[in-house]
């Protein structure tokens, strides 16, 4: 088992159309950097200098990491991580 990461539609261009990818347990920021190796450009789009951008939220199993340990929030096998950027279309 691994960590499941849900990729929002605006970022699926970077993940070759994949909406779900897998990562290894650790912290959220390590996960983001690990994903960037497989999908170059992903980290830059959602983070800056090791911090998640302020118009992007990351949820570990429905909980916003800003209210947990932020970038250092731990993720373990079986967890589901969602990347949710603000969208503004109407």
């Amino acid at each position, binding site marked *: 088992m691994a960590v499941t990461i849900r990729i*929002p*539609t*605006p970022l699926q261009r970077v993940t070759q159309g994949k*909406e779900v990818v897998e990562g290894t347990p650790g912290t959220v920021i390590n996960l983001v950097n690990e994903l960037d190796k497989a999908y170059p450009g992903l980290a830059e*789009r959602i983070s800056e200098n090791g911090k998640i*951008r*302020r*118009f*992007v*939220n990351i*949820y570990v199993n*429905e*909980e*916003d990491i*800003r*209210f947990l340990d932020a970038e250092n929030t731990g993720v373990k096998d079986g967890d589901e991580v*969602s990347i*949710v*950027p*603000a*969208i*503004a*279309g*109407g």
Partner: protein
Amino acid sequence: MDFNEEQLLRYSRHIILPEVGGKGQSRIQKARVFMVGAGGLGSPVGYYLSAAGIGTLGIVDNDRVEISNLQRQIAHSMNTLGKYKGDSAKATFEALNPDVRVIPIKERLSKDNILDLIHDYDIVVDGSDNFPTRYLVNDACVLTGKPLVSGAILRFEGQVTTIVPGKGHCYRCLFEEPPPPGLVPSCQEAGVLGALPGVIGGLQALEVLKLVLGKGEPLAGKLLIFDALKTTFRTVRVPRNPNCPVCGSNPTITELQDYSQDVCSL
């Protein structure tokens, strides 16, 4: 409020619901809803609220109907190409239900006019197409204590949340600041599937009716995320941010500000 015979028939499927009844229908008829945008989301929101018999529907939009809108903006038609969207929507909604008073407002929302414009309304619905407007609408609703039903769409994804001032999060608790221009594409740049705003706008209309009726649980403290390709809904928790710049304990935003971003570059 008394109903005439036609209204009793028109609203009979509402009135028969114990959660609505004649009393609830009267509340709907007295409700005043302010819609931001008469586009993809505003079309179904306004359509369903009109059908439900909402008393007054203010619609702010200063765009005109273009043919590229008609793939999703169902309040408009070939007959209203080139007309102001507010006027076009008014004709559509009043054709469906002449009980509804539709007030088109052909202005661009700004920090200078928004407080006056929303003053006489009970609930605000955001279906705008850009970040500066979304933050402005949020801040105005927080500062004036008006409930806000916010919906957004892009490509195959939709988001809905309901902000009830004093009872949970606001849009800035969710996303503290708008993204810099260019980082998040617009529908014009990235596309949007035509039926998607029907789902999200329909949910926004439901949220409004629940708020008006005082029934059920609105999406306060929650964000609903719809994935049209998978047909899945997910809900994540949105706690109130105690450090929120507008609704937190020590707010730094105490008056309205306009973001100067060019809408077209978002």
